[in-house]
């Protein structure tokens, strides 16, 4: 008999799917229920994911056979430390964003609430599916479910977002096709689709050209999905013109989940030993370094806050991929193996989630998109702006925030891997971050409002507060405070045992 917790991986996916249908049907009767159903679903999913994580940490991996079919024939859902961890992050941000959207969607997408929450739940279904599945074809299907809902959600604001969404759709489909092709190649040599089974069948075939070709297709396909430089071109527009919470999900979770898929393919389907025999991860490091620098430079040249944040996401994917690239050569705990990349997946979700929600708050309250229009916002919306400052300082890497910890660990990893070139790259990038974030902070707090020169008096008197509703402010502040709290927790090494368990699953890290 399976315990209750062992049923949760499949339930997480199923209740999300069912809730999408429920929202759609009840939406005919009462439009107000959509948000409540969606929030309740996400809350229960989030709690389940915590149970799963706890179970995985204490008891061990969960293997769930769908329909009772024995793998490799049946589809299997496997939860190990890696995807349990990712699942918690994804459902947490999903929950925060849905709470935020209660007020925001009325503003950004009036009268489209029901369809928004329906598609949103489909998005969550897809994301959960990618995370929990232990079958590579199943993963492809879920990647496509995720992407399709993402295309729809991006396009929901209409106008320029339509074009952005279309570009994303074309590139995303090509990426997915490459992924599918990789699956086909692997299937043709092994006859299996189960990830665990593949990892047993593949090692004797490592020299095989079909296997190599399959690996390359996986990398290229997923690189498009995770917007790795130079395949990032779809990202800025798509992330900039989506509704705020979708931007937060896109930058904070969706591209990270593609990274998760990449890690799963690279380390579960293939192995660290296979990767060490190829120069692929070295090339990834260099691409990531280019992403970090070029993404930051392009971010500096933006005048629109959300586009700036989107380019910053390109740079931050560079961080994650760089950490990933170093994972097979850096082995010492606590920065060895996948630790820095896992760390930054969470950190980036917190920081970028917060920043995009703040950007959404500016649009909600005053329809402000351009950085130059932010004069005096520090006084008009003090709590929102303070959250922005915390998240921005974290992006710059001021201790003790999460951004600092990521940067520190990636630097330590690159020193251990003897790849010293990346140390100045990382340091330079934090200065570049400083330039583009400080421009915003300076405009918000320091620049005087036009036409009011005598700042000493008029400033305080004539600008009354126009704070956003609590339902939007609370999610922002949860994320902002976590930027600092998690930073301290990382520094105190409290979540490190979890990451070590992830490493030991893949035979990475190891030296304590």
């Amino acid at each position, binding site marked *: 008999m399976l315990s209750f917790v062992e049923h949760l991986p499949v339930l997480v996916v199923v209740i999300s799917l069912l809730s999408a249908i429920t929202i759609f049907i009840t939406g005919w009767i009462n439009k107000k229920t959509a948000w409540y159903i969606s929030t309740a679903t996400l809350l229960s999913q989030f709690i389940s994911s915590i149970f799963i994580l706890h179970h995985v940490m204490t008891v061990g991996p969960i293997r769930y056979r769908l329909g009772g079919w024995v793998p490799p024939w049946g589809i299997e859902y496997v939860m190990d430390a890696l995807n349990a961890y990712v699942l918690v992050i994804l459902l947490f941000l999903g929950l925060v964003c849905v709470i935020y959207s209660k007020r925001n969607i009325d503003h950004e997408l009036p009268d489209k609430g029901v369809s928004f929450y329906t598609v949103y739940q489909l998005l969550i279904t897809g994301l959960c599916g990618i995370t929990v599945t232990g079958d590579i074809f199943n993963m492809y299907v879920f990647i496509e479910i995720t992407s399709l809902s993402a295309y729809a959600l991006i396009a929901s604001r209409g106008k320029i977002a339509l074009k952005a969404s279309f570009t994303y759709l074309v590139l995303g489909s090509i990426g997915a096709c490459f992924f599918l092709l990789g699956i086909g190649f692997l299937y043709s040599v092994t006859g299996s689709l189960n990830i665990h089974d593949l990892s047993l069948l593949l090692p004797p075939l490592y020299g095989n050209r079909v296997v190599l070709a399959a690996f390359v297709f996986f990398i290229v396909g997923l690189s498009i999905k995770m917007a790795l430089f130079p395949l990032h071109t779809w990202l800025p527009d798509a992330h900039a013109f989506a509704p705020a919470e979708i931007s937060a999900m896109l930058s904070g979770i969706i591209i990270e989940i593609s990274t998760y898929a990449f890690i799963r393919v690279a380390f579960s389907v293939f192995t660290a030993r296979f990767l060490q025999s190829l120069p692929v991860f070295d090339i990834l490091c260099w691409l990531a370094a280019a992403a970090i620098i070029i993404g930051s430079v392009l971010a500096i040249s933006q005048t629109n806050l959300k586009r700036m944040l989107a380019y910053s996401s390109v740079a931050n994917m560079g961080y994650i991929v760089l950490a990933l690239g170093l994972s097979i050569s850096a082995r*010492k*705990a*606590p*920065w060895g193996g996948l630790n820095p990349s896992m760390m930054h997946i969470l950190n980036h979700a917190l920081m970028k989630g917060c920043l995009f929600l703040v950007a959404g708050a500016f649009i909600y309250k005053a329809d402000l998109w351009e950085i130059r229009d932010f004069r005096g916002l520090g006084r008009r919306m003090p709590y929102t702006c303070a959250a922005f400052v915390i998240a921005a*300082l974290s992006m*710059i890497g*001021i*201790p*003790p925030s999460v951004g*600092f910890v990521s940067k*520190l660990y990636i*630097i*330590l990893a690159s*020193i*251990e891997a003897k790849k010293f070139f990346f*140390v*100045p790259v990382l*340091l*330079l990038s*934090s*200065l570049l971050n*400083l330039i583009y974030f*400080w421009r915003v902070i*300076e405009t918000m*707090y*320091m*620049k*005087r409002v036009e036409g009011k020169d005598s*700042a*000493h*008096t008029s*400033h*305080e008197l004539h600008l009354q507060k126009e704070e956003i509703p609590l339902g939007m402010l609370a999610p922002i502040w949860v994320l902002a405070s976590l930027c600092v709290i998690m930073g301290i927790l990382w*520094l*105190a*090494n*409290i979540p490190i045992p979890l990451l070590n368990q992830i490493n030991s699953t893949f035979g990475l890290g190891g030296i304590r």
Partner: protein
Amino acid sequence: MMEIPETLKPLFALGCPALAAILILVFGRRPNLREGVTLLASLSQFSIILSMASRVVSGVKIQSYLFPIVPGISFGFRVDAFGLLFALTASSLWILVSIYSIGYMRALKEHAQTRFYFCFALAILGAVGVALSGNLVTMYIFYEILTISTYPLVAHEQSQEAIFAGRKYLAYLLTSGVFLLAAIVFTYATAQTTDFNPGGILSLTSSSRSTLITLFILFILGFMKAAYMPFHSWLPAAMVAPTPVSALLHAVAVVKAGVFGIVRTVAYIYGIDLMRELGLGILLASFAGVTMIVASLFAIAQDNLKRRLAYSTISQLSYIVFGVALLSPMGITGAILHIPFHGFMKITLFLCAGSILVASGKKNISEMGGIGHSMPITMLAFTVGALGMCGLPPACGFVSKWFLGLGTVEADSLLFLAVLLISSLLDVVYFFPIVYIAFFGDRERGTLNLSEGRMMKEAPLSMVIPLSITALFSIIFSFPNPITSMLFDLVRLAISH
């Protein structure tokens, strides 16, 4: 009062400003309560730090490590004599400057006062954190907090000039923070630790000569807060800040944090012997010597009083670096003594400049003719500070410079002695004209209040009292008494290894 466990004292000392910062935000709309919190926090912080002094003097090192960050580095504090000296300087002056700034900010009806007090408390948190840190990583964390929290204070005025000054401030200091991080990480990679250890943690056995020299340059670039030339220009620019900020932060907390870092690096990361072996002492001393003289020359040319004081600070900071770079016990004694002494004297000067601004609206020296007659206490205090800067008795600057002089003799370098003397002479050249103008200048024009068109008088009492106290202490330090003997005990302990 309840007795705090000894190992928790550093945490409580840092908790005071941290808690104060939160309470200041909470009481933002009630000025009296808000400023009461600041005063209370500064008093309790000082008393906690003072209570550690007696233990430290008896040779105990108070340690409290909270959690390991990476193997070999823990986040934590280790209070030794040298750190305590800096912490004492910063926290004692915080009390006085708090009183002063209440008078100053209210008299000038400054805007955004809550932000001002909030950032001020955070900056003190940063400075005292730097002082008490047990290793480089902990220090870096507080060092960056100090940088960020002082930015809103520099750009406080929110004018175009202030915004540019703020940008310059951040550009210099955060860039240097990046160098510091690089230096720390490479130190960790070679030594597997970053703890401050008397005698150093690096050695020639584990790494090559050129690596160590490069690393040292990284460290020096990292401590740009010490405002050595040619990376000094952020400091005069930062003088657009309100005077209490210039006084406490840009004469004591921020810049001394940089100097403190350099001393820590020289004595506790490299160690005196390694420094001598690498020949880095001479290099550092030469740089410091050049800064001492060139900054003094720059100071002569300034008419704005605060800018002149800023260049004087640049020059005086290099005295400290210079003293350490001599690598002789006397030189280091002089350098360490100069940290509190210069702190007290320079703060006196800045507070005087602020009083003059509040009482008369004057910023430039040329307008201050005869001001000593209408503001006798202020200008008397100013004279004491100026005497100290020039190294003349009875002010305490004489004591520290005397030791620096002995240090050059010990280091057997007549050239460095000459540099020290020339620089002191230049100090006289730019400080005495101010004193002269104030007491013997053109009284008719000088004693008029520019902003209100009436005869000027002393600044409010809450401003005059703090500056008299600092001036008084500047004299007390040069005579034997319990306070001075405690200071000397601490210095002796600090150099005893």
